[in-house]
């Protein structure tokens, strides 16, 4: 009898802890500190960066035992895109659509970031995230795709206890962007298509 009561109490406590972990909740916007990116050179292009609604609305689903917590990471993605392009190109204008970008005749390059997918897993006391972002660069005048790159960022962070897990999940996102930003910066720097004045 005593044993059955203990089991029931334990299961209720597990349920309470799982709920405390925030299962099935939409969280507030994730904000991350942008990486300092140095060592490269300024690429000789006037770029127009397209930060569209799809990117702004991107949400990451954090699948857990009791459900899926939703983390809006659109703001973080936009800040990351501004940071990596601002440090890579001679000039960067920001517009909300490709149509607007095409009309900016003073610029020669259109850059379009897209969040392709993101997944998290958990086990061994840690969370692991994979965040995939695709960058398309178009010649503004011809609308030809001149460069395309898919960047896959990975990061891990300990899960913490039921009381600290939310903080650790935020740290996980920070680490993912800490991996994503230098990879993107390096990809811009190494692309032969961006080295010369002509696209």
């Amino acid at each position: 009898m005593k044993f059955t009561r203990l089991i029931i109490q334990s299961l209720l406590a597990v349920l309470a802890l799982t709920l405390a972990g925030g299962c099935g909740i939409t969280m507030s916007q994730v904000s991350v500190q942008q990486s300092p990116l140095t060592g490269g050179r300024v690429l000789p292009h006037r770029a127009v960066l397209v930060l569209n609604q799809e990117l702004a609305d991107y949400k990451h689903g954090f699948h857990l035992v009791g459900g899926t917590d939703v983390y809006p990471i659109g703001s973080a993605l936009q800040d990351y895109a501004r940071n990596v392009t601002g440090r890579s190109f001679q000039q960067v204008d920001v517009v909300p659509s490709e149509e607007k970008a095409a009309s900016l005749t003073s610029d020669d390059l259109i850059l379009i970031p897209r969040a392709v997918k993101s997944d998290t897993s958990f086990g061994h006391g840690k969370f692991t995230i994979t965040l995939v972002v695709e960058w398309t660069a178009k010649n503004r005048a011809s609308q030809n795709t001149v460069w395309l790159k898919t960047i896959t960022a990975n990061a891990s962070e300990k899960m913490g206890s039921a009381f600290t897990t939310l903080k650790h999940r935020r740290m996980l996102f920070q680490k993912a962007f800490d991996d994503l930003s230098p990879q993107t910066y390096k990809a811009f720097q190494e692309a032969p298509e961006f080295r010369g004045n002509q696209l």
Partner: protein
Amino acid sequence: MKHFIIIASCSLLLLFNGCGTARIADYQPASPSISERMAQQSGVEVALDPFVERARTDKYFDIDAIANGIAILHVRVVNKTANQTFLVKKEGFQLLRNGAGGLTGDGKKIERSSPAGQVMGVVGMGALMGLVGAAMVSNATEVQRNFTSKEMGDQTLSPDESMEGFIYFAPLNHGEDWTRAAAVKIKLAETKTRQIIELNVPLSQ
């Protein structure tokens, strides 16, 4: 008593969270793999390595892919041209099965159409999620994340550059050898002229 309940609860929670989930191995391709098939066209070389052995899909994806009806294909593309850039997209890869697309096992074209032929496009990880049978939530999330992290990304390939990654086709009949009488048709676009080049790589030995 109270402390015991808390400790027991935390232990149970950790068990649900999958402490036993092993880390899945990173893939370091042997160069060249014995099961790799290659083709070359207009200065572009494509090597395909179908993952049909249970040992390899277990090691690198933590599932028996054939039993789960998923075709896993490792792709390596090399641009050997001096001044051309190619756009390589997953959607440019098609799996032609049972003679579909007029291809025989050795890649030679045949004239008759094959009613049993089947053309399959690449599927993304989202579509695979429901197909993967995993015992625990934690294991399922890790299997899915691992598929995503190993997936080939779309990209342009500049002269002398190479790229690699995995692409997936599903659903297949569970337990079926999907490479039998199959070939992969690949379309790549040259970025300046938008000219399309096509390669056909037979998968059967």
